[in-house]
């Protein structure tokens, strides 16, 4: 199980129109909407990669590239320093 965890100093805030990932140390801020918001929300709730992928497959059964898209997004979050 690949554990996903926000980096130290990164907080996630939920709002009706989306979410914000905020790095308290650097002041960097990332807006998330739609599926990205959903993924960030699940990470914030402690879900691992497999659970998130399962959830996405349930929501978007017709989508073929979910796993690749999820991994790309996770990589992007890591590169931006949002994930540990």
């Amino acid at each position: 199980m690949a554990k996903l965890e926000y980096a130290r100093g990164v907080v996630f805030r939920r709002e009706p129109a989306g979410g914000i990932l905020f790095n308290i140390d650097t002041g960097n801020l990332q807006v998330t909407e739609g599926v990205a918001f959903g993924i960030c929300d699940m990470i914030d709730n402690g879900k691992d990669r497999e659970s998130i992928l399962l959830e996405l497959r349930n929501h978007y059964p017709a989508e073929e590239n979910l796993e690749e898209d999820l991994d790309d997004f996770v990589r992007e979050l890591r590169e931006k320093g949002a994930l540990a």
Partner: protein
Amino acid sequence: MTSQLPTPRVLYINPADGCNLHCKHCWVNEGSRTGKLLSLEQWKDLLTQAKALGAGYVKLTGGEPLLYKDIVPLYRFTADIFPQVAIETNGTLQPDGLWETFLNKKPFHVSVSIDSANPDIHDEFRGGTDAWKKTVAFAKKLVEHGINNQVIMSIADLRRQPVKDMARLVEKLGVSTLKINFIIPSGRGKNNNFSRNSPIKEILDFIAWIHEEMPDWVLPSVPAALLPVNHLKKLGYCPVRNLMGVLPDGIFSLCGVAFSRKDMAWGKFPETSVQEAWENSPVYRMIRSSVPGHLEGVCRRCMHKNSCAGRCVVNNLETGGSITSPDILCQRAYDAGLFPETRLL
């Protein structure tokens, strides 16, 4: 240049002294008029110096920039050496050769001011007969010439119908965006401005109404913390730490504020070079040392502090007495318990 200094990335150039209109909210020439205008050659020299220091974006503003007698060659020169040249104009003037020059080298962005869909209301606010008709004609030309455009509407109250009417007009003209500017208490706006006239709850409801009911190309100019998440990506921030303004006589200013506040002016081109001003002006030094690090009030606790930087230090200076005072809308929202908790640290 000292390596720790930020780059003067953004230049606000005010080439013409004053304006052909007399708008109710303007800060320009509320104090004394400026001195002898810089010549075209002097502006070229100044722009070349700024370019060498790393400037990449120039806004020709004012006062009314199109009043400057050499505005067309000045624009041509500026657009030749800078990747992004924007113009803020009242759109009532069309100097000879302007459109040909624009077509040859399109501006990055041109915004014109229209405050009402009703010509009489606009003309009364702007203090000029037929201003509305001329500006609408200018806006149409921008669209026809395929120039990136925007209409700016300045408002001092919360009436919704005028905004709806303006949105309809803008759509009809084919203009890309309608920016709603809330009049700030500076210059002639001191006595009739948005924050002074309205209770904060009603202001926030008004902002929410724009987001919920108006098309997404209607852009209220409000602090990031008061915008829904899905509108943050479209928000522009004041580049205050990288901003240099120059008045018509070569006085260095922060944006154009020194038109009305002489304490925000320091040094004069060409006696003072661009580099000397950028390095030594107490105004720029004060900004560097205090914004955003020493912002006060709710700004200190806000997650947008680094990017928003108090939104407008001029507004904050006028409303709170210091460039580190918090934005008045955010502070009033916070004091009333209406500031979004999710944006606080």
